[in-house]
Structures are given as structure tokens and as C-alpha cells.
């Protein structure tokens, strides 16, 4: 027993139960100290021994293997002002009624476009942000760079942002949990879509139906004609969920054999007068292609089948001039086809015929805003379209829009599209927003609050854009 352990033992039970003297207690120097009682002796010995222990403390030796350091990030760091804004956004010191996240997303988008990185010290906060804001994960992952993905590898909650070394992908895909395998596949689809599909094909036959369907859903990222053979085979799958998932993906590939078969069915329904006959009960081949089960809300069975066939037919089969005299079912089918095929010509033509939020959302910002600037009535319908419009909006459109909304006192539109206005208005419209705010009388408190929020967002977005030239 060492002198210290002996002393500690005495102190724990108390000198009332165990005697103690400095003489012979084994603490160096204790013989030069006087103590008038056992208590004083313990305290004096503690003073001496604690001094030795503190001064003589030696650190333990760590015998682990340190992880490989992070790869170099070649991007320059963003400006101090930009870093400060991000810090305030992530720390919720800047708040926005329409959602602070839209500003954070704006910051990340601007950083990605300019090729600058956030300061390293903000990486943990960014990863925490992406952990809760799942919609922004892809963007966060693109901005955090090699240091961020390296850091994410240390914390299981951040595994969504970690990169798996190329050599380990196959092994992890073979042994991981279902969620891990899906995350792995989704990541690989971004960079090497063919390799990801090959991984799926390797184990395809042995996977349960739910996993096969989930794998197909992941293939939506980076989908191309190269995926068609797998999808075409999946149309013969035992499980209905897998067949439906395959059919849904093939709708996005207008060059596929299924699209070709659908075009044949659609042409057969096309009359000389330019109208469409309603299809009868689907035959076996049509059922294989996924026609039948689905019912459009408010439409009959036959009409639903027609919409389904048109939605899956390549739009190159038709001419946009037919839109003006097509009936509602046909327009709906073409609208679905245009959105799925991402056909800007058809999207534009259909939106000119009758704009819907779906169409507006699928257009490029320039065309969408061009269409919206022609709107005559600033009613709630317009508000819904505006809310769906993609950004960024051009300066002239933005300024004129705010002016028109103000002149029309269109507070309902303001309410419906507040988030889109905060997110997409060009900063040049800030003065117009502020003027509107000044002109508002009392009694418009909700409108004033919304406008203040929009002005706040525009100010911060303007600063962000300025800091990322």
C-alpha cells in the first residue's frame, strides 16, 4: 500500500475510527511538519502528498491508430462576411418567418456556384443542419467538401454526409443494413450511375420484394436509357410494388420500348378528327405495361386509362397545335407527360393554354416568369402559380410584380406566395417592397409583417450574392 492510499483510507473512514500520525506516514517531508492532532496530521499530509501528486502527474499513453486525415480542400475559403452570415443563420440568430432554411439553402447554393468553401469551424453546425433539414442534405454534401465528409465519418448521426471509400463500396453494400445500402446506392448514383445499377443487378434475384422496389426508387437519381433493360425486366416481376416502381421510372424515359408501345396504343385511339377514343379493358400486354389499376381523381375508369396512356407516350408523337382543341382528359395526360419527360416546348405550350402550378414549377425561371408577367388577374389562382414558380426571378419581373401586387392591394397573393417571394425575388425589388411597406396604413398588420419578412430576406440574400461573386 502506498503512502497516499494509506492516507486516503484513513481520511475516508475518519480519524475517529483509525489513528494517524505524521511520523512514519511515508509522505516525504512530513517529518518536518508539526501537527497537534490526528486530524491536523491527515490534513498536513494531504497538503504535502496532493502537491506531489499534482506536480508529478503523468499522462496515460494512447495506443490506438489515428484515422487517416482529411483530404485537401482546394477551394478558397468564403469571405469573413459570408462566414458570419452562415454562422448567424445556423445559430438561428437570423430568423425568418417564411423559414430560415430558405436563406441557408440560398447561402449554400451561392457557395456551390462560386466554388468557395465554408470555414472549417462551421462544418459541425452545417452537418447538424443537414441532419434535421433532410431536404437540404444533397446541397450540404456538395458544399462541405472533403473535410466535411471526412468529419461526418466520425459521427453515426452524420453518416448521410460521409463518403465511403471506393474500394469499400461493394463490401459495405453486401453487409450493410437496408438503410445503409440505400444511402450507399443513392450516393453512388450521383457519381457512378452504371456501377450502382450493376450492384443492384448482382443481388437482384435474392432480394425481398420491398428491397427491390426501394432499389428501383433510388435509381431515379441519375436515370438514363442504360437503366432500361433492368426496368423492362422488372415489369415481369412477381411483386406488384416492383412492377409499379419500374413503370413509374420508365415514364421518364421517352426513348424506351415501353414508351414506344404506349405510343402505338395512343395512336390507335387517335381519330381522324384529332380527338381520342376511350380505351377498352386493357389486354395482357397493356396490363404488363402498368395500365389499369390507377384511377385519376374524379375520372372514370376508361378516362383514367386514356390519361395513363397519354402520360406514358413520347410527346414527339403529337404536335403542340393540337392542345387548343383537346379536351380536359387529354390535356391532363399531356401535362403529366410533359412534366415527366421535362419537355420545355410542351410545358410552355400547355402553360400558355392553361397554366397550373405543376407546369409552372417544371418550367425554367425565365419562361415561368415570362408567363406570369402576362397574367391579367392577380387572384388566389395567380398566388398559387406564383408560389410554385421556380427561381431566381429576373430583376425587372420582380420589381414590376411587387408594383402590380401593391397597386392591386393583392394581399391574398402576398400571403399565398410569401415564401416564394422571399426566396426568389431579385434583390433589386427591395426598394419596391419597402415602399409598399411605407404606404401600408394601419389595419394591414399581417401584410406589413409578411412584407417586413420579405424585405429582411432580400437584404440578406443581396449580401450573400455580393459575397459570392
Amino acid at each position, binding site marked *: 500500500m502506498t503512502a*497516499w492510499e494509506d*492516507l*486516503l483510507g484513513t*481520511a*475516508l*473512514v*475518519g*480519524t*475517529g*475510527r483509525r489513528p494517524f500520525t505524521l511520523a512514519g506516514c511515508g509522505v516525504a517531508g512530513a517529518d518536518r511538519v508539526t501537527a497537534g*492532532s*490526528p*486530524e*491536523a496530521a*491527515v*490534513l*498536513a*499530509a*494531504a*497538503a*504535502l*502528498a*496532493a*502537491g506531489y*501528486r*499534482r*506536480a*508529478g*502527474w*503523468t*499522462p*496515460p*499513453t*494512447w*495506443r*490506438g491508430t*489515428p*484515422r*487517416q*486525415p*482529411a483530404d485537401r480542400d482546394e477551394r478558397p475559403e468564403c469571405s469573413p462576411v459570408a462566414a458570419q452570415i452562415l454562422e448567424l443563420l445556423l445559430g438561428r440568430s437570423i430568423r425568418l418567418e417564411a423559414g430560415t432554411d430558405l436563406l441557408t439553402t440560398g447561402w449554400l447554393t451561392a457557395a456551390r456556384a462560386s466554388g468557395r468553401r465554408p470555414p*472549417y*469551424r462551421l*462544418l*459541425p453546425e452545417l452537418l447538424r443542419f443537414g441532419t434535421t433539414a433532410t431536404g437540404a442534405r444533397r446541397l450540404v454534401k456538395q458544399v462541405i467538401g472533403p*473535410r*466535411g465528409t*471526412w*468529419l461526418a465519418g*466520425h*459521427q453515426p448521426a452524420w453518416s448521410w454526409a460521409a463518403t465511403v471509400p471506393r474500394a469499400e463500396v461493394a463490401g459495405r453494400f453486401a453487409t450493410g443494413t437496408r438503410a445503409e445500402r440505400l444511402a450507399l446506392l443513392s450516393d453512388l448514383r450521383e457519381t457512378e450511375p452504371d456501377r450502382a445499377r450493376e450492384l443492384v443487378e448482382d443481388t437482384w434475384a435474392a432480394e425481398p420484394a420491398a428491397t427491390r422496389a426501394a432499389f428501383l426508387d433510388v435509381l431515379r437519381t441519375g436515370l438514363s436509357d442504360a437503366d432500361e433493360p433492368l426496368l423492362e425486366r422488372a415489369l415481369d416481376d412477381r411483386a406488384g410494388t416492383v412492377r409499379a416502381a419500374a413503370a413509374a421510372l420508365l415514364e421518364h424515359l421517352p426513348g424506351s420500348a415501353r414508351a414506344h408501345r404506349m405510343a402505338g396504343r395512343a395512336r390507335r385511339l387517335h381519330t381522324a378528327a384529332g380527338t381520342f377514343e376511350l380505351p377498352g379493358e386493357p389486354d395482357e400486354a397493356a396490363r404488363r405495361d402498368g395500365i389499369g389499376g390507377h384511377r385519376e381523381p374524379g375520372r372514370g375508369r376508361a378516362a383514367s386509362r386514356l390519361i395513363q396512356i397519354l402520360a406514358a407516350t413520347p410527346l414527339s408523337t403529337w404536335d403542340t397545335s393540337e392542345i387548343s382543341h383537346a379536351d380536359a382528359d387529354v390535356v391532363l395526360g399531356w401535362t403529366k407527360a410533359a412534366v415527366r419527360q421535362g419537355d420545355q416546348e410542351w410545358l410552355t405550350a400547355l402553360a400558355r393554354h392553361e397554366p397550373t402550378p405543376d407546369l409552372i414549377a417544371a418550367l425554367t425561371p425565365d419562361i415561368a416568369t415570362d408567363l406570369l408577367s402576362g397574367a391579367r388577374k392577380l387572384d388566389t389562382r395567380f398566388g398559387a402559380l406564383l408560389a410554385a414558380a421556380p427561381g431566381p426571378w429576373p430583376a425587372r419581373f420582380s420589381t414590376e410584380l411587387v408594383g402590380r401586387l401593391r397597386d392591386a392591394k393583392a394581399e391574398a397573393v402576398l400571403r399565398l406566395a410569401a415564401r416564394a417571394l422571399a426566396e426568389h425575388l431579385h434583390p433589386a425589388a427591395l426598394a419596391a417592397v419597402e415602399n409598399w411597406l411605407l404606404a401600408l396604413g394601419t389595419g394591414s398588420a399581417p401584410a406589413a409583417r409578411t412584407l417586413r419578412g420579405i424585405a429582411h430576406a432580400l437584404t440578406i440574400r443581396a449580401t450573400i450574392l455580393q459575397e459570392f461573386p
Partner: protein
Amino acid sequence: MGSRWTVARVLALAPDAGSAKAARALANPRTWSDLGSTSSLVWGKCQGSARSPYQVTVDLTEPSFRCTCPSRKFPCKHGLALLLMWVAGDGSVTAGAAPAEWATPAAPRTEPARPDPEAQARRLAERESLMSAGLGDFELWLHDLVRQGLATARRQPAGFWDTAAARLVDAQLPGLADRVRAVAADLHARADWAPHLLGELGGWYLAIRAWRRRAELDEAAVGDLRAVLGWPRRRDEIGDRVADRWWVVGLSQEEDDRLLSQRTWLHGERTGETVVLLDFAAAGQALKVAHVLGSVVDGEVARYPGAGPRRALLTGDEHQVMAGSGLPHATGVPDALAQAARWLAGNPWLRRIPLALAGMTVVPGEPPLLVDSGGAALTLAPGTDVWQLLALSGGHPVAVFGEWIDERLHPLSVQVGDRLVAL
């Protein structure tokens, strides 16, 4: 009065910690009226529990306090609160007004206007005898504790420790009171509570015995003793000055109750000496002096009496400030601990030991560690943001500056490239 008034200087005039706390609570212009000041006089009326407001006047030249309240404490909380508001300089105390008739120092009741060496010596003797009596009581309390055993002490309710701390405060020993409260908090938070408690008891006992022999101690030892007891130095007692290029290597801020305190660690390029500046501000107010981490200040500091690392003040007004390039004095863990041992040999009560460490790898885990190239591992204090440390280092060895407290490292800054980044 040559030197500038600060919050810390006002609070140093408080007779005990309770008065200081009460004064900070009272330093709110809403309960005051007729506030004003000249270069030598500050006055105001404070609505207290009595019907008519107390009339409070402070003559800054002495300083002498005058207040119509019935408190036996001197100075009373009203006088201290008045000075705190005046020091804050937020405009609540009008400057340059003519003093009201009641405020003119025609006949200060409690204190003579001129310094009186006899009265000062008497006050000093009173304070010392109060402290001696308090330390005597504390010694008996320690004896009881050791007789009954640490295991029994651990089972005591929080009130057991609070009462002891309160009696230390009454005996003007607030420094010891803080340590007693800190140990009470550690008893159930630390696995090694028993050796930790025994070591602390030894330190307190050492302070009691050192106090009795204070006449034989040198100035530095008395300085360290006063610091552990909580008897602060006045500014005019500060000792020797030393000029150097001072690198600002670490900042740490703490907010307790109502006081914001900041420690600024400086490393002298020429002397190799480490000193620490202490600044205080009332809660909700910004610190007057904010030194920029990583900068280099060319100037003179005045050091308080004590062993190293010493508390100091930056003196003079004009300092040339330049950008530094990280931690100039970082070493491996063994050398840093050897320096810590030398400091402990000079001051056995030293709690916060500055460590400047080179080539440290961050190892996240439970608990997270900093490991040097030889594998020597220091445990990071609970509450350390290890992810930020890891993000800043990227897995590469980095230089880290921190405070070593009870075998835990509280990192304050880390060198990234040639810049210091605060944690």
C-alpha cells in the same frame, strides 16, 4: 485619482460578496432618480424600502461614501450600485451637472474627506482579525470533517457545504468559499471524488497555516495566498512592470450570477513569461477591453505579486498591435507538464494551468482525447466541442492552447495554418 474606474475596481470596494451581488442587482436606473456626476462627485437618489428615497453620494477622490440608508455595511450596496451605473457610462448618470444641495460633500457623516492613515490601519487590522477568526472556525470544521471521514462528508446534504461557504464569505474569505462550493458540486460528478476532495482539503489547510505565518512569507507567496483566500489587490498595490511583445494566445469567458469575467492569456516573446489579464463587466454589458486572439501587443504589463503564471494589467494607453502567427511557445505534452510542475512548485494553490501544446491529434471518443506524437493523452474537459476541434484539425496534428484544470484540458484556441482560432 489617477487610474481609471472599472467594474472590477468598484466591486473590489465591496465589504463582502453579498454586497457586491446586491449592488449589481440594484444598478438599474429605473429605481434611481436625480442621478448626476462631476469629475469628483457622483450622486443619486435610490428608492429603497423606506418611504423617502435614500440620498447617496460618492466622493471619488477618496473614495468616500455617504448614504442615508440604515445599513451597517460600509460602503453600502447603494453607493456601490451608484458607482456601477456611473462606470457603465451608458448615459444614465448625467455628467457635468451641478450637484444638488443634499449631495454636496459639506459634511460627510461617516467618513472624513482626507485619507487617514490611522483609520486605514485600523480597518486593515479589523479585516485581518475577521479573517483570522474565520480561518480558525474553518480549521475546526475541517478537523470535524476529517474525524468523521470523507465517506460521511459525501453523504452530507448540500446545505452542509453551503453553510460552510457562507461563513467563509462572512469572514471575507470569498476565494475559499468558491472552492468549497466547487468541491461540493464535484462530489457526485467525479468518479475520483475521494482523492480530489482529500487534495482540496490539504490545499485549504495549507492556506490556513500559511495565513498564520504570513509575516514570514515573501511577497509572491503572500500574493498567491491572498488570491486563494479571495482578498484582491488594489490597483495601486500592483508590483513590477515588464515590457515585451505579448502574444494573445487564449481567451476564456465565464458568466456567473451577474458578472462576466474574461481571462486573456499572454505569452511574452522575449521573456518567455506567461501572464493572464482579468477583465470584468456587469452582466448584459460588453467588456471594455477585447483583445484580439492571435494578435501581438507591444507594450508593458504590470504584474500582481505572486508566483507564475502571474496576473497582470496592460499599462499605458498606446500599444502597437500586430498580427501574430499562432502559438510561438507550443511544446509536446511532457515539456508542458514539466512547466506545469514548476508553476505548482511556486504556487501550490494554482488551479488553472496554461498549456501550449504542439502537434496534438484529436481523438474523438468517450472521453475525447488530445494525443501528442509520443502517444501522451490528455483528456478533454466535459463540454468541449470536440467536433469543432476535429473539423479545424482535419485529423492533422495541430497546436492547441488551453487551461489545464484538475487533470482535464479546457482548450481555448487552436492554430490553423498560421492563425489562431478561438474555440
